[in-house]
């Protein structure tokens, strides 16, 4: 029962991880760029939603508008920052996305201040109790929305012409160019979609967890997710997101107390600290060493 309750919490958070990670994978597949700013897009999406509700818009309209704004912003960053950096070394591109993250945080700090903000309720407040397991409407909504979005997005990616062009671009840039696909436009589309996913994920997360600048840290949590899933696998990101959400909840609720109980009985050590913060990364190292391409990823060969 207890574990089930943990799993419910883990799945809710994990499904949001999946949304955020999807965006990172999408960009990486398409352009080989690792977007460290994804957490920043999530944070900004949540703040814009909040800002729009605070001027009086109903929360659903605010959310839709915010996602649209995020899409535009995603396209804009790709055009203004990433396009001119086509020939830059990988690490410079990584750093540029970190620069975007820093800038976004500063913008939010300037407009909304450093304090934690109560996020408007996107969903009704309250919970269903199912034989002792509490499921808040927030959890249910976040999970359902993430699930629908992930599924919808994957369907879009596999069954529409734009999806096909995205997959072509991700598969082989040279061939895509040769058949007349405007590759850099496809990359812009990937950034747009990715920023929209992040914005929505951010708003969902804020409705679960409240809103502050700390929300941007979700981007770092997403990295173990995408590596575990395989950098290039979208379904992998979804599965890994859920697994990681559950794993963190179980670490907090079961693993840490069990270890600490054991240590307190048998040694002088009293606490193992915040174990859940390293569990994803420890797992990441293990997976990388055993299967560098991730669980669902395909092997890439190094180009000479």
């Amino acid at each position: 029962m207890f574990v089930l309750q943990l799993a419910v919490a883990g799945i809710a958070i994990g499904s949001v991880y999946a949304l955020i990670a999807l965006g990172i994978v999408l960009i990486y597949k398409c352009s080989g760029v690792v977007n460290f700013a994804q957490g920043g897009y999530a944070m900004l999406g949540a703040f814009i939603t909040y800002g729009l509700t605070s001027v009086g818009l109903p929360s659903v309209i605010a959310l839709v508008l915010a996602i649209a704004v995020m899409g535009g912003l995603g396209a804009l960053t790709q055009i203004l920052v990433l396009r001119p950096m086509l020939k830059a070394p990988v690490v410079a591109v990584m750093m540029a996305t970190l620069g975007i993250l820093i800038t976004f945080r500063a913008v939010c700090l300037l407009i909304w201040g450093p304090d934690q903000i109560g996020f408007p309720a996107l969903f009704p407040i309250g919970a269903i109790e199912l034989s002792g397991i509490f499921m808040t409407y927030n959890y249910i909504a976040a999970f359902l929305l993430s699930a629908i979005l992930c599924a919808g997005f994957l369907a879009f990616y596999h069954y529409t012409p734009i999806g096909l062009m995205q997959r072509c671009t991700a598969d082989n840039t040279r061939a895509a160019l040769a058949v007349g696909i405007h590759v850099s436009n496809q990359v812009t589309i990937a950034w747009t979609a990715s920023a929209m996913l992040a914005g929505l994920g951010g708003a969902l997360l804020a409705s679960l967890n409240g809103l502050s600048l700390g929300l941007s840290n979700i981007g770092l949590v997403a990295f173990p997710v995408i590596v575990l899933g395989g950098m290039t696998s979208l379904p992998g990101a979804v599965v890994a997101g859920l697994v990681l959400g559950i794993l963190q909840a179980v670490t907090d609720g079961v693993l840490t107390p069990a270890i600490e109980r054991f240590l307190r009985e048998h040694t002088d050590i009293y606490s193992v600290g915040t174990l859940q913060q390293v569990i994803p990364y420890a797992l990441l190292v293990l997976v990388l060493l055993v299967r560098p391409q991730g669980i669902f990823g395909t092997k890439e060969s190094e180009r000479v």
Partner: protein
Amino acid sequence: MLDVSGLSVRYDSVIAALEGIDFEVGEGRIVALLGPNGAGKSTLLKAIAGMLPFEQGEIASGKAVFDGVLLNGKHPAAITRSGIALVQDGRQCFRNLSVGENLKAASFRHSKGAEDRLQLVLTYFPILEEFYARPAGVLSGGQLQMLVIGMALMIQPRLLMLDEPSLGLSPVMVQSVFEIVERLHQDLGMTVVVAEQTVPRLMEIADDVYVLSRGHSVLHAPPDEIDEDRLQSLYLS
């Protein structure tokens, strides 16, 4: 039809890959572009197709004109749309996508009559129909070559450029590739440029031969004036 004059290409702004190339392709002809490895054949084709900027290359001087339209500085997508298809070396296709999706992707920019062209491609290459729903990655080298030529046909080109199509293929496969080139030329009246290192079979079908060496154009002649020995001496010059 295609008129390249005084074309020079640099990579990374410093390395000169082509110097002052003149290259002309008349409507309905098959032109052989010969030269040893590294002579600049691929670079010339890429320059025409607008692919250079994606490989740190740029046209330093000279121009390429197709049907009176300047190609310099145009995006590959636009050049493709104007009727030039380049089949790149290394059989560039989407290996994680199905054969059908590969062909579909190639017709995005030319959706009119795509169905008919697809039927045409499948008649030319029955093997593609057989593997239609399988990922392109499972195809053999020869089959892949069929696929990429098929993809090029989906673009509905008036000028088809093939970059070393025979590389790494068995002699039988090479034979059938050139048969197809000939059929395309005969059935559809397509203008074709084929870049190769040395292929006697190509000499039989070509109308015109250009030889490149170390980035320079060293010979332009009808095929009957060229034999193996002359080529060897040109390559070594």
